[in-house]
């Protein structure tokens, strides 16, 4: 039944995660439904999909921001979903997040020193001098000249530099898990490359486990060991990065990959055709397989039964009645 069993030494385990938001009149937005993924220590799991697929809701639910409607999140044996108040605050040191908009996520009225020291302040760690020393170390680690930066404010820095500062703040408590939600999406490509290289370097040096959320499949491939593809709140396919890009078997994964505009004039630009129409509403998702209204392979079975997740090769999980296995 559980396609995700077989995995040992799981560090972050997300089991049957469900996120629903209440609307008026008894309606609900089914943002994430029964999402399961297991991440090993030191591994990066990429989470991709288009707007409304639930990737950010899933990431926030892992962070307990807010707590998920259902399911369990376990980090290194500690069940986060069961924690409350002080215990949750203490556990938060171990998992931190960076957001999409690097400028909006820094308080414009604070100095860089105070912004990066905030987690230490909240956790009650160190004297003011010790904190400042630690902030300077972190800034140097992310490639910001600490001597010049400490007393400045965010508006004096570019988007790429602000994102480096956000990374310094997220890592100052030495977390085990870093959740990056579209962390490089607002950056220009040359700066994006700098920040991606930095994240890769830090991951190796600090032994971080990462959950990397992005709509950009090429970016996700660059940082991920394994990749999960989501559509309308459900997992479609999960496999190691090489496999999912080379041998995608879920029709949605294949469509998504075929639509990536490659910077090569001779690349094949034929996008796998979807059934014309719009993304269904997560308030009223289709019965059975949620992708079936756009899927060219859909049959009556897809409308009737929710496809179960199955492991078609070691570590390659797909939820589809008609996977594209040659």
């Amino acid at each position, binding site marked *: 039944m559980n396609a995700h069993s077989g995995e040992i030494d799981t560090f972050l385990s997300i089991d049957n995660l469900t996120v629903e938001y209440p609307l008026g009149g008894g309606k609900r937005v089914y943002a994430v439904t029964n999402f399961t993924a297991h991440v090993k220590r030191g591994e990066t799991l990429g989470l991709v999909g288009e*707007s409304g697929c639930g990737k950010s809701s899933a990431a926030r639910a892992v962070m307990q921001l807010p707590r998920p409607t259902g399911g369990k999140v376990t980090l290194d044996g500690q069940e986060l979903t069961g924690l409350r108040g002080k215990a949750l605050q203490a556990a938060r040191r171990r998992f931190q997040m960076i957001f999409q908009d690097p400028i909006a996520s820094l308080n414009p009225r604070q100095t860089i020193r105070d912004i990066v020291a905030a987690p230490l302040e909240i956790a009650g760690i160190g004297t003011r001098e010790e904190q400042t020393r630690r902030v300077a170390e972190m800034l140097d680690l992310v490639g910001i000249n600490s001597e010049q930066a400490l007393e400045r404010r965010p508006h004096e820095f570019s988007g790429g530099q602000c994102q480096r500062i956000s990374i310094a703040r997220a890592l100052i408590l030495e977390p085990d898990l870093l959740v990056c939600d579209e962390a490089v999406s607002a950056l*220009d490509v*040359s700066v994006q*490359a*700098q920040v991606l290289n930095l994240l890769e370097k830090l991951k190796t040096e600090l032994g971080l486990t990462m959950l990397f959320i992005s709509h950009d499949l*090429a970016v996700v*491939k660059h940082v991920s060991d394994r990749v999960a593809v989501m559509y309308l709140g459900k997992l479609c396919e999960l496999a190691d990065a090489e496999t999912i890009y080379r041998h995608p078997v879920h029709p949605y994964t294949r469509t998504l990959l075929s639509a*990536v505009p490659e910077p090569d004039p001779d690349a094949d630009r034929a996008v796998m055709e979807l059934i014309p129409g719009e993304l269904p509403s997560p308030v009223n998702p289709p019965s059975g397989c949620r992708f079936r209204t756009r899927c060219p392979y859909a049959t009556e079975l897809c409308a009737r039964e929710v496809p179960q997740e199955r492991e078609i090769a070691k570590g390659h999980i797909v939820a589809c009645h008609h996977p594209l296995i040659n």
Partner: protein
Amino acid sequence: MGEIILDVQNQRTAFATGRGLLQAVEGVSFTLERGKTLGVVGESGSGKSVLSRSIMRLLPGTAITGPGSRVLLNGKDLTGMTEHELRRLRGPEVAIVFQDPMTSLNPVLTIGKQIAEVLVFHMGMSKRAARAKSIELLRAVGLPQPDVRVDQYPHQLSGGMRQRVAIAIAIACEPDLLIADEPTTALDVTVQAEILDLLGRMVRERNMAMILITHDMGVVAGRCDDVAVMYAGRIVEKAPVRELFGNTRMPYTAALLASIPRVTDPPHRKLDAIEGRPPDLINPPPGCPFAPRCRFASAECQQQVPALEGQGAHQYACIKPLNTGVAA
């Protein structure tokens, strides 16, 4: 040579700021023929959007256009035209599609009224005829149920559908030149492919010329005849698309291409990032604007700004171009 639709000569656009004059577009010249698509690529602040607005004459009051700048559309000089004259051209001769269809469409008018408005103003159509034509245009841009959608408001449509409406408005008066300024940046990747296909089809079917402005090398790679790369307000390289990707001469273009993550790369490949950041356009560095970040730069590069030169269709602004061993 085909019929020249657009001839931009030495376009210079600056903005007065508190710190001094910001030179957003500096000496840009190019021509565009009917039926051709020119891709304009650049990062934030490279001047690509200011260039598109300079061509459309849609600049704010703080903008200062250089005295020698000229924009000829079908041979007519837009530079000295009054707002009244320009309004007569926008629509029938040149039209623009913006990045965010939610802010470019009017939220309190039905989409049918917004298309019909153009047809009544420019083509002198009756309201009834304009409505019929609006439905036809919505069908042409692939909007499902056009006879129902025509009476809906922008908020009732998805982002992709709104961009289709914006395209319908832009092509309503059969312009000779269509400017698409980051038309798919706000859209998901599968929708992006559909909208780019649609734009390409409209340009072919109606034999228009198009300027496709984007930050994404992947978008221009498959969908343009020629590509101009902008950096710090200037075109630094311009070539037919295969030539640009296959025989890159300007180090900035090469560095930009190398910094792009690709789905075909193996996982965890280290990207060749460009160190540093684009120059301050109020106090630009001396000489080549890319020199401070260029790994091939020498003292010579900082002496004067290199002109955009080259043999035939491939032009580049660099005194130390790459691939010099290869015959152009």
